[in-house]
């Protein structure tokens, strides 16, 4: 683990392998602890990050995760942007349905991780990659 967390700038982790998914989890955990998310919120955020990082790898063909500490005046939070230049998602409604999968998984990655965070935004189009932004706020 890196010594000290710079809460200022965003930190980017490339996602190109299994091991990178582990690194994304570790980075997110470090930042979540630093902004003092509760234990349950840390767990939810790291779990969501793990699902989305795996999606970026498997469906997006790799990409990046960018982790930033955000503030809205009253509270702090952790924002993560997962970006890939893969095939994009054709039917977003379907992709966000519990149990739907095109990859042989459980179909809980997108729908499940959306439930685990406070803000969830997804931008995608066929052929134009996918960009998912999630935020978890301290309470």
């Amino acid at each position, binding site marked *: 683990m890196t010594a000290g967390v710079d809460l200022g700038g965003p930190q980017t982790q490339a996602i190109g392998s*299994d*091991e990178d*998914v*582990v690194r994304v*989890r*570790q980075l997110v*955990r470090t930042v979540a602890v630093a902004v003092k998310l509760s*234990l*349950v919120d*840390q*767990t*939810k955020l*790291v*779990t969501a990050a*793990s*699902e989305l990082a*795996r999606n970026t790898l498997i469906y997006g063909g790799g990409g990046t995760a960018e982790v930033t500490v955000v503030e809205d005046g009253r509270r702090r939070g952790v924002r993560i942007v997962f970006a890939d230049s893969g095939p994009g998602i054709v039917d977003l409604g379907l992709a966000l349905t*519990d149990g739907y999968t095109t990859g042989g*998984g*459980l179909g*809980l*990655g997108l*729908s*499940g*991780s959306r*439930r*685990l965070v406070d803000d969830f935004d997804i931008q995608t189009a066929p052929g134009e990659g996918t960009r998912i932004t999630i935020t978890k706020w301290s309470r």
Partner: protein
Amino acid sequence: MERVPVLKIGDILLVSIQIDMSDQTAVTLQEDLAERIVATGCHGVIIDITALDIVDSFVGRMLSTIASISKVLDAETVVVGMRPAVAITLVELGLSLNGIRTALNVERGMELIAATRDDDLGYDDTPGDVESATAATSP
């Protein structure tokens, strides 16, 4: 790639996951366990996840698969030591951990396996099945 050790204690295989597993490590553990069940003839598998700070859908599916594989190989699987925050997150994620038996700690897990084993070895269950099976094979 890191590997998770499988320990044999009497009639039980004990796996204590102490690392943040990559997906490949999880798949390898699944295969290692199947081989060890057959090689040792053990009738119980205990998977200790005390040290895991998250269980995402991939690891959840691995736990379910291990339980199914060991069932086919005549062994019971019990997952022990799940942290409260992990349990809360799993439920919210939508993961049901099908077919997995759980216990709070290793000791209770061993008791559960022993009790299940005693039940299975009893002669009081469903003699009707034996008759119909005999009838089906007789000319």
